[in-house]
């Protein structure tokens, strides 16, 4: 799992989405200083959210010798529904305040894209001592031809 790469992309995506939505409100023109300054809390929040809510699924799945796509297929639907529900509640309870709406919308899409980027990472496997020759052969086949799955 290339966590730094994923986090980097997510921070950029979250910052862009957040400021596009905020700047769409005519009254709040983004000031360059604030945009730069906001990257620090955005980076912290994005890193914490992904490390604590997305990565554990992949760490746990890898422990059970599952591929990233298998983990994605198994958990992503429920995760996205849960995060969508939380973000919707957040937006409604903020009475559609532009900053909170921007925060929740970017949080929803960033976490979803984080899943996609993890799932699309090239396949690498760690074999346990209990892995049978067939299992290893199957995984190697998948590794060499991922699209056929």
């Amino acid at each position: 799992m290339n966590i730094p790469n994923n986090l980097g992309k997510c921070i950029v995506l979250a910052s862009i989405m957040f400021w596009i939505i905020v700047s769409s409100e005519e009254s709040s023109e983004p000031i360059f200083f604030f945009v730069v300054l906001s990257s620090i809390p955005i980076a912290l929040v994005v890193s914490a959210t992904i490390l604590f809510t997305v990565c554990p699924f992949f760490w746990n799945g890898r422990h059970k010798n599952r591929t990233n796509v298998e983990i994605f297929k198994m958990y992503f639907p429920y995760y996205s529904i849960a995060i969508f529900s939380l973000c919707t509640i957040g937006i409604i309870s903020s009475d559609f305040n532009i900053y909170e709406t921007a925060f929740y919308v970017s949080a929803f899409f960033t976490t979803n894209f984080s899943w996609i980027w993890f799932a699309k990472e090239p396949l690498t496997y760690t074999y346990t001592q209990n892995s049978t020759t067939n299992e290893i052969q199957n995984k190697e086949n998948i590794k060499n031809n991922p699209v056929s799955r």
Partner: protein
Amino acid sequence: MKHILLVIASLLFSVLFFEKSIGINLLIFSIITLIVLSVYHPQKAKQKENIVYSVVYLLSAIFVFIQDSSLSIFANCVAFFTLVGLFSDHKTSIYINWLNGVFTSIAGLLFIKVNHPEKKKHHQNIDLLHLTKLIVIPIVFVVIFILLYKNGNPLFEDMINKINFDFINIQWLLLTILGFYLFINISEPVQVEPATTKDLSLKNELFKSEKFSDEKLKKEKQLGTTLLSLLNLLIGFYLITDIISIQSLDISRASVLSAEVHKGINTLIASIIMAISIILYFFRGDLNFYKENRLLKYLTFLWIIFNVVLVALIFIKNQNYITAFGLTNKRIGVHIYISLVLIGLLTTFLKVVKTKNMVFLFRVNTQIAFCILIALSAINWDHTITNYNLNTAKSYDLNYLIELSDANAILLKEYSKQHTLDPKLNYKIDIKYADYLKKIEEKTWQELSFKEYKMSDTDKAL
């Protein structure tokens, strides 16, 4: 060509919903959704279930237009997710349709991106350039010709100058992108796995297991018979005392009636949950196929009947309460809850008689709950409550009626004109009515509901 439809749909999405409240726009959105689903899945759209649910979805949108209530909007959303889920697989249970429908609507495209990358690449290769041509070239030519014709005809120039594109801004464009994201998601419904496959593999019937043991079942039957006999005795005794207490109840005091109904409801909740759990426990497997289970079955049926009587008693108490002190949302809620409980008991009875499993119970009950939700959304409850209380109830709380939604503003205004009320109440009603009129006047065509379209000058001049 299909992608053009999505672009048009997303533009309409913004026109309909940008800075707008709900009205006729939801009905138009529902029609667009049905067109998108039918164009992308012509074969699925012809399937019987999909036609039925499309009609239900359209009906729920019509109810939103006619009733303009929060319940009808909620019912329409549920119908939308059900329909989208149905297009992903029409043979699954309704709760799996909801799961697939919600997931497809919020992240279908992202899921396809990983799950079927070849599908997405195929789409991109074929459509992107073509799509750009289809949108950009006609727009460029239309603009050029408009500029040419403008100079040739003063009337045409005047008309063109009147077209106002001020509503288009960054937020409008963002909403259009969101609309496009929604429509592209629902154009390719996806399935949540392994939930969908598991649901498809589950049957409604129970089968005799390989561990079938007469001795073990005999003991279980003895336990069940003893337990249900005692519970039947207990509930029978409780019902007798309850009937006596209803007859001696002082219905002139709201607090007494209220306490009675609430106590009854709590008893009902506990009793029904216990009843269904015990029945499900004993009839979970092989006891259904045990030859000497007749007595246990009869006791179960008796217990279900006793619980139905308990439901009826609560219904009577609640109805007494309504007759004496008028309708409220909570009192209607109690009636709906009682009806759902009754249906739950009937389906449990069917489960035992027809040797069905728990999945059957869950499937049937959720399906019925969905039907009830759609049926209830056909009524504007705030209007109904006000109408009933003002015309039929023996006494009611006028302050409560004033706090309800604007659906009863005209009724209250008419009532205040015909009756002499407390000046404070009169003032509150006037304020409510004036606010209602102001809101209607500020509404654009997208936000209007049927009754607002039809609102006569007499209503406005009250």
